[in-house]
């Protein structure tokens, strides 16, 4: 009874809706696409719908930027717009825009006609945005489901390829299992602390003895979220799904949902001061880095190789979670951003080069790419160098901040494991470069010219990768500021 009165007294006002405006924009554009898909002629609709989706994501970016001036809570403290959520909003919507640009050409080449593709990308982005601003576990769960269900379907979009349907089904079954773990964890946490609000949970856990139940709750939530970011030992699905899913979608789901889930993890781990954080994270990080890199060493399919590499990168990122909040949070945020830039870019090249039916995704297909398409090979080389962590690329400073945060938290062994792993990682990325430049091409046919959309996508990711590597100061400073806001009590 009390609750009802409370609700009636606090009907959501204009402010509340303003604070979820980016999500509203994405939803409206997504729905518009679904409606128009039915009305438009199928042969011409692709480009139109793609453009609408692009507009939608750009509008969402603009709205988010405006939102930055009015931070605060909304909807009975379930949504919190702060510098932290703005950071991830912009990250997710930018990735969305870039992936849409990549998809234009891909969809034509693969002859997939489906307007809902773009709608689903926008709905997925909606879920991810909401995840980064939600501060209430049930809302987080809903957002996570919105984002996951969209990506399950997107993974199966290469309808004619059995491997794609397999990817979709695998991802769906295992993914639902993982979200169930997360939900169970939420329930236990509610039992332990009497609340689902992250701030309240944090206060309760800090104020007294931590009940056993809370440990179990955190562990179960970590299982669910660990699955979503492809952290070992919950990573087994990754290579199969990445291999089967359409290449632009892989670029999307290896970056945007991961960024959003890392945002959730940051809130749960640091803002709620999760008990038992250190050792759980320590083990997952060390395992992910090692298994990811070792797995990547023996791959001959570029998509699978990048899948294992993404497991390894989830591991590097988790290292920051084991560090202290002062610099761990900002290091993790910086890493998410620069990983997104280089990985979306790498997959954009892969998806262009894959060709009809994604036949050209093996390492041998890349031989002589440096001769056949110097521009594509050159761009991919820069992304790969960034993935290795060579200076003046974003990847270098990402690793640098993460490892120095770990060192300041006295995690010497974890840092050593990380550095050794980056050395192993250098080997398989270099292998691609060697194949591209130092092998004779098997097939002299020139690669299709780079269309405008893809060119823009590549330029954006390349510029971001280099910018983060040459002038990382501003982004890091913003991340530190929002981290400080996050930890303020």
């Amino acid at each position, binding site marked *: 009874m009390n609750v009802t009165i409370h609700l009636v007294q606090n009907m959501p006002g204009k402010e509340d809706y303003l604070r979820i405006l980016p999500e509203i924009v994405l939803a409206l554009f997504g729905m518009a696409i679904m409606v128009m898909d039915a009305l438009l002629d199928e042969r011409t609709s692709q480009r139109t719908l793609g453009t609408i989706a692009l507009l939608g994501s750009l509008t969402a970016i603009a709205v988010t930027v405006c939102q930055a001036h009015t931070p605060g809570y909304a909807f009975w403290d379930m949504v919190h717009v702060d510098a932290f959520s703005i950071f991830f909003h912009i990250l997710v919507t930018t990735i969305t825009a870039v992936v849409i640009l990549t998809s234009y050409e891909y969809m034509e080449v693969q002859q997939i006609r489906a307007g809902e593709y773009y709608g689903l990308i926008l709905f997925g982005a909606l879920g991810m945005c909401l995840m980064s601003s939600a501060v209430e576990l049930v809302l987080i769960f809903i957002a996570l489901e919105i984002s996951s269900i969209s990506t399950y379907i997107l993974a199966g979009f290469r309808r004619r390829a059995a491997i794609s349907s397999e990817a979709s089904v695998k991802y769906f079954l295992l993914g639902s299992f993982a979200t169930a773990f997360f939900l169970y964890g939420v329930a236990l946490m509610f039992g332990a602390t009497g609340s689902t609000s992250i701030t309240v949970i944090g206060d309760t856990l800090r104020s007294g003895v931590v009940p056993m139940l809370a440990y179990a709750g955190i562990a179960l939530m970590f299982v669910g979220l660990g699955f979503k970011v492809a952290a070992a030992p919950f990573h087994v699905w990754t290579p199969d799904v990445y291999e089967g899913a359409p290449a632009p979608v892989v670029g999307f789901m290896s970056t945007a949902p991961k960024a959003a889930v890392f945002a959730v993890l940051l809130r749960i781990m640091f803002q709620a001061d999760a008990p038992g954080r250190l050792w759980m994270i320590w083990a997952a990080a060390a395992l992910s880095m090692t298994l990811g890199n070792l797995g990547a060493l023996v791959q001959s399919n570029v998509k699978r190789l990048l899948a294992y590499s993404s497991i390894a990168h989830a591991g590097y990122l988790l290292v920051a979670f084991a560090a202290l909040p002062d610099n761990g949070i900002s290091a993790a945020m910086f890493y998410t951003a620069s990983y997104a830039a280089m990985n979306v870019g790498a997959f954009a090249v892969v998806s262009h080069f894959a060709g009809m039916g994604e036949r050209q995704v093996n390492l041998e297909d890349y031989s002589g790419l*440096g001769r056949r398409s110097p521009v594509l090979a050159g761009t991919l080389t820069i992304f790969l160098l960034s993935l290795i962590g060579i*200076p003046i690329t974003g990847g270098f400073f990402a690793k640098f901040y993460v490892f120095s945060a770990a060192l300041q938290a006295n995690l010497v062994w974890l840092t050593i494991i990380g550095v050794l792993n980056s050395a192993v990682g250098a080997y398989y990325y*270099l292998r691609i470069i060697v194949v591209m430049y130092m092998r004779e091409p098997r097939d002299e046919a020139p690669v299709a010219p780079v269309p405008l959309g893809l060119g823009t996508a590549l330029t954006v990711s390349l510029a971001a990768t280099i910018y983060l590597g040459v002038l990382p100061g501003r982004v890091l400073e913003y991340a530190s500021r929002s981290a400080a806001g996050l930890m303020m009590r």
Partner: protein
Amino acid sequence: MNALDANILSLVTFIPLAGAVLLLLIPRRHRDIRVFALVISLMDFAVSLHLPVRFQRTLAGFQYQVDFAWIPTPNIHYHMGVDGFSMWLVVLTTFLTPLCVLISWKSINDRVKEFFILLLVLETALIGVFVALDLFLFYFFWEATLIPMALLIGMYGHGRKVYAAVKFFLYTMIASVFMLAAILWLYANTNPHTFDFVTIQNAIRGGQIPNFSAAAFWLFLGFFVAFAVKVPLFPFHTWLPDAHVEAPTAGSVLLAGVLLKMGTYGMLRFNLGFFPEQSRANASWIMVLALIGIVYGALVAMVQPNMKKLIAYSSISHLGFVVLGIFSFTQAGLNGAMYVMLAHGVSTGALFMLAGILYERRHTYEISDFGGLATPMPRYATFFLFIVLASVGLPLLNGFVGEFLVLSGAFQDRAIYGVLGATGVIWSACYLLWMYQRVFFGKVKHEVNQRLADLDARERTALWPAAAAALIMGVAPLIWLNAIDPAVQSALAPFSQLASKVMGQ
């Protein structure tokens, strides 16, 4: 200090990079790509001449400095500056690059654009290594040299080029990880954290770094390993013959002419600059390795059937002199080491160009495939002889000055070092002159060699500057040495204090 002096180092460093970016925009089939690369590299050489012209030769310390904050966390500065050591190495780099462009004019026919882009990017990275005074910047340029060099070997080399490129890359990359660890230790232990060379050096000398004495040996070793692989010092030398034999001519010229000097320059700058005590304490085994390198390199060079491999092993021997000079801690030794670096850059660069010219005509480096070449190619034979004599250390040519100074320094340190080092001079005369005899004298053994064309105008243009430099460096060494000497004296200053401290005890 005027505006040009303040920006000259950035200009010299980044003109080639800007040229490479412009090259990217030129259409692929355009035939002027070579001309453009030549113009850019000549322009950079001309600009770099400003450095010695306006250099204050009586002053020690860094000149033409530029220093501003670049990245706040970690605290990285864009700090550049040159002293007598690095200035000449910069000029050596800008001097050799146009010659590399000329010598690659015809031999590179495939992927021409990429070749010259890589060459120019490599030039920027090489210059950056010598001018950087921020450890992070230094490390960046250091690693940045690897990628274009490995690509030059792997894309344009011959034979087992991929193997050679990967071996080169992995060897130097793994070794420099140790240096990175040492750099990060220094960064973490300075307060406030800094990568700045001068600040760290002052902090070390002022004893402001906690736990420094405990870590110093390992830090010294971290830097030393990275540099020793680059030099290459025996027993880290195995990558060098492979890389040289498979590399294209321009790659070999820059590899021998400049890349190897990054190692010896690093020893001078960082091992001596940061760790004088540890350098002193470890000098004996380092000198022994250097001596082994001198003798072993010479002996292996003697038996090589392959001309390019012979020159590669002779580099190992010559670079041994440099290390010997550096770790003798005498004024003559250091001056000589620096001079051998420059002289070796010019004469070995020229030797590789000469070998490349022959390869263009016959597609082989085997000495036994030639013989009696002096008859069909008299001009070529003359140039070759001149450079061989310079390399052997004939007085009045450039090789002599440096080797003489190094040996006299080594004698001052310990006579046996001088004696053993001096045998290296004899060996080098043996293998180079014997090679010369087998290639040029006697009757023409193979019918194909009868009709070999002599040097054309372009090849002569590429060789003349090198030959002229070899002569001028031989007769007027003071032009170079009077700028080097102040740097040597300031590098040796901690050692005389060290010596007096030992005496006092």
